[in-house]
């Protein structure tokens, strides 16, 4: 089984190295920057920064489903008829929208470390425990994202007329099927612009995880800047890479919006 995973992983790595936009066979750094500080391989910092680019993008992509799922259920909780559920979900958003992202990250990172340490100590394991920075970042950013996401989804839920639920019930659909077949498609269409903004914010917040040691764009360029003493060039490079990510995602989001609104086209 592990052999299968290893094979799968090596295929994935091979595909990744082929389509790598920075240091692949058709990468930007490989063709435009040979012989400079950004060259790929041992001569420059190109491959390290390319690795950071992949880490940043994958952290944001891995956080998205976590945040969306939690945010969806918190939004459902906020419009529940049960007072306790509403109160609990409102506490959730108040806390995680009010805390600075950096503080949330530290609380999750060190808090998880202490928690796991105590848990392992109760099983008799005494030793240093190191939490994966990627995992901690995923949880912290996912929680923050979900708090904002629940607000966006809540306003989208409110934009859907009540008759839609009643029509679903009149057709004899179960509540979960009404949600899946009737409400969700409209919800996505209404919430997509807001979710796009949140995605941009998430993309920028991933830079904070470099503080707890995740080798993302900012950390890799920071290391390069410290070694080569050319901080302006490397941090400028980091900014450009973030801009590239923002541009790519804005293109993807505008296409997605067009796709979800294809039924309204041509009117």
């Amino acid at each position: 089984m592990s052999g299968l995973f290893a094979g799968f992983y090596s295929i994935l790595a091979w595909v990744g190295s082929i389509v790598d936009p920075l240091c692949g066979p058709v990468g930007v750094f490989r063709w435009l920057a040979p012989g400079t500080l950004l060259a790929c391989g041992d001569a420059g910092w190109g491959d390290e920064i390319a690795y950071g680019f992949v880490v940043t993008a994958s952290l944001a992509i891995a956080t998205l489903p976590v945040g969306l799922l939690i945010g969806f259920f918190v939004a459902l909780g906020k419009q529940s008829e049960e007072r306790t559920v509403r109160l609990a979900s409102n506490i959730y958003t108040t806390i995680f929208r009010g805390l600075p992202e950096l503080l949330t990250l530290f609380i999750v990172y060190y808090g998880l470390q202490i928690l796991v340490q105590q848990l392992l100590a109760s099983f008799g394991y005494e030793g240093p425990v190191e939490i994966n920075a990627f995992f901690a970042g995923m949880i912290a950013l996912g929680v923050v994202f979900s708090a904002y996401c629940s607000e966006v989804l809540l306003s989208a839920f409110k934009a859907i007329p009540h008759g839609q639920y009643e029509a679903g019930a009149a057709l004899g659909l179960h509540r979960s099927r009404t949600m899946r077949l009737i409400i969700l498609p409209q919800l996505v269409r209404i919430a997509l612009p807001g979710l796009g903004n949140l995605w941009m914010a998430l993309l920028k917040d991933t830079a904070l995880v470099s503080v707890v040691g995740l080798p993302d764009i900012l950390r890799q360029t920071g290391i390069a800047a410290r070694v080569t003493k050319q901080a302006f060039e490397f941090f400028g490079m980091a900014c450009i890479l973030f801009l590239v990510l923002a541009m790519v995602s804005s293109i993807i989001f505008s296409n997605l919006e067009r796709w979800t609104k294809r039924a309204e086209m041509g009117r």
Partner: protein
Amino acid sequence: MSFVETMIPPQAPPPAPPKPYTLARFVGSVTLGIWLALGVGIFLTVVNGWDPAKFTKYGPSFLSGLGVTLMLVACSVVLGAILSLPVALGRMSKNKIWSWLAYAYVYFFRGTPLIAQLFLIYYGLGSFRPQLESVGLWWFFREAWNCALFAFTLNTAAYQAEILRGSIESVPRGQREGAAALGLSERIAFYKIILPQAMIVALRPYGNEIILMIKGSAIVAIVTVFDLMGETRRAFSRTFDYQMYVWAAILYLLMVELLRNIWAWLENRLTRHLKR
């Protein structure tokens, strides 16, 4: 033939059917219970780990950190508001070059993380030391606090310019035309008619921007400015006491919630003539 001779006396209403114990109620009790347990747990750890020596040692530094955070946010928001005026005008200008420049500025500062901009200014400008010294600006960029202020001002100016532009463009065209029909000059029409209506639209985004700045200001701790977050990190690295982060979290939450409520009150007050 039979008929009713006596009226049925009035009856008490039937008892309300017992509320079924739904899944939602269960979920609500459980989640509320988790929050309560967390709150009590945090309270107990604070009470158990209460150390007057630590409090007298780190309490004042927390307060000074709070002061630094508030000062930084206040200064950068005010300076950013001033800087956002020309940027917003450039964004709305018909001149291709100005509008393109303003767009590039806004796009750059909104598209990159604040922390990357801070590093670019704090570490990046350090490599231009001879040039800066020759211009006589090195004393400014030598201090981490000044660099943070500079970066935050540039960043918030980009966001505020977009707020300003959006709110000015949200005023319907008819208002401008009406002012022109009344013979008001362009300048007076802008200050007396367009701007007041735009500011009401912009009030809420401005509040959000200030809250975002308060939260974003935590990152200056990384470039050795001892704001609230910086003091927290220093205290944590000396004591390894997790409580420090709890205190910082409470202070940040208090700040944000206070501002949010003040802003809601302000908005309520300023828009009372629009209520029906």
